[in-house]
């Protein structure tokens, strides 16, 4: 796998005339966990969708792995949606077989071993799974893809604290953070604090701060939560 890279230059995105992102430029290079942090409506989802090639910028360039992003970029990118993205009539087993056919890089073995670890019933229909288990299953699919870039939109939202902890563990255990670039958005900053290598703070469609998490703690002598309060205030 090549070294993962995401590159944005002067990216603006408008929905009709309403700007969602304004003139964003940054470059993320190398593996690790990147957190996109910001309030609701700050543009986190729009940013992630642009990176994943699910939206086109109104102006500017988005490149992933040195190529402008298009629908074909999905071969390099796994995207975990905030929305309920599973077919409710499938079972976990059917879902995995489906993904094996759709994505050439999908590792069926990895998926099944994660399912076993989680004690999920592979034959149960997805519509009968609990919300926490649906979230876990979605994550299993994303983590089973052997791609350089993983994009996760709010993997923790709407889940109880125990499940959130469990999900973070699942990510740490199964994402290959020495090889893959994982970018995730969240507002549970205190919970992901210890897991992030790098943070991107968003406010009103702008990227206000992009920095290494340990460098921030070292320089400011305060937690990411405190830094977030400071820069987003």
């Amino acid at each position: 796998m090549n070294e993962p890279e995401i590159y944005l230059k002067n990216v603006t995105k408008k929905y009709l005339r309403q700007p969602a992102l304004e003139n964003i430029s940054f470059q993320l290079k190398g593996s690790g966990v990147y957190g996109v942090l910001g309030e609701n409506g700050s543009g986190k989802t729009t940013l992630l969708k642009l990176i994943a090639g699910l939206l086109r910028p109104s102006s500017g360039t988005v490149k992933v792995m040195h190529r402008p992003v298009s629908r074909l970029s999905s071969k390099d990118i796994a995207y975990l949606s905030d929305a309920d993205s599973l077919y409710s009539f499938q079972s976990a087993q059917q879902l995995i077989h489906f993904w094996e056919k759709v994505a050439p890089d999908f590792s069926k073995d990895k998926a099944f071993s994660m399912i076993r670890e989680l004690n999920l019933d592979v034959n149960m229909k997805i519509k009968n799974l609990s919300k926490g288990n649906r979230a876990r299953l979605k994550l299993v699919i994303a983590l089973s893809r052997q791609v350089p870039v993983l994009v996760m939109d709010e993997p923790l939202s709407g889940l109880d604290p125990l499940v959130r902890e469990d999900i973070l563990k699942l990510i740490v255990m199964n994402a290959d953070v020495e090889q893959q670039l994982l970018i995730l958005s969240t507002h549970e900053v205190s919970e992901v604090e210890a897991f992030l290598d790098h943070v991107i703070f968003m406010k009103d469609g702008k990227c206000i701060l992009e920095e290494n998490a340990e460098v921030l703690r070292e320089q400011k002598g305060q937690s990411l939560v405190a830094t977030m309060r400071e820069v987003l205030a």
Partner: protein
Amino acid sequence: MGLTFDNNRPIYLQLMEYLYGQICRTDLKPGEKLPSVRELAVKVGVNPNTVSRTYMEMERKDIVVSKRGQGTFVTEDITVIQELRKKIADDKIGDFILMMNQIGLKNEEILQLMEQKMASRKEEEE
């Protein structure tokens, strides 16, 4: 595992202090293998890259040795560990004396208080 992080300080440093503690107490013996990066990351709830950085820093200071393809091991050189213990103790005692001076205690008073405390602790143990 008794490890909670103070999010105001770099996590790799806190993890390093924690492991130094284990090494100095010989919970991790000289020459013993440290847990793998991923294992420790999951156990303490941090990013594997943070653990890698901790291991790298400890290797730079010769406290651990990494062997290609085998993992990371505590140094077998006991003098290095003794030095480490001495240095940590020295730092902590320095901090302690500074703090006591800040609340207006003179050095003789600190010594006296320490002796009293040690004596009463010994009694409790007996």
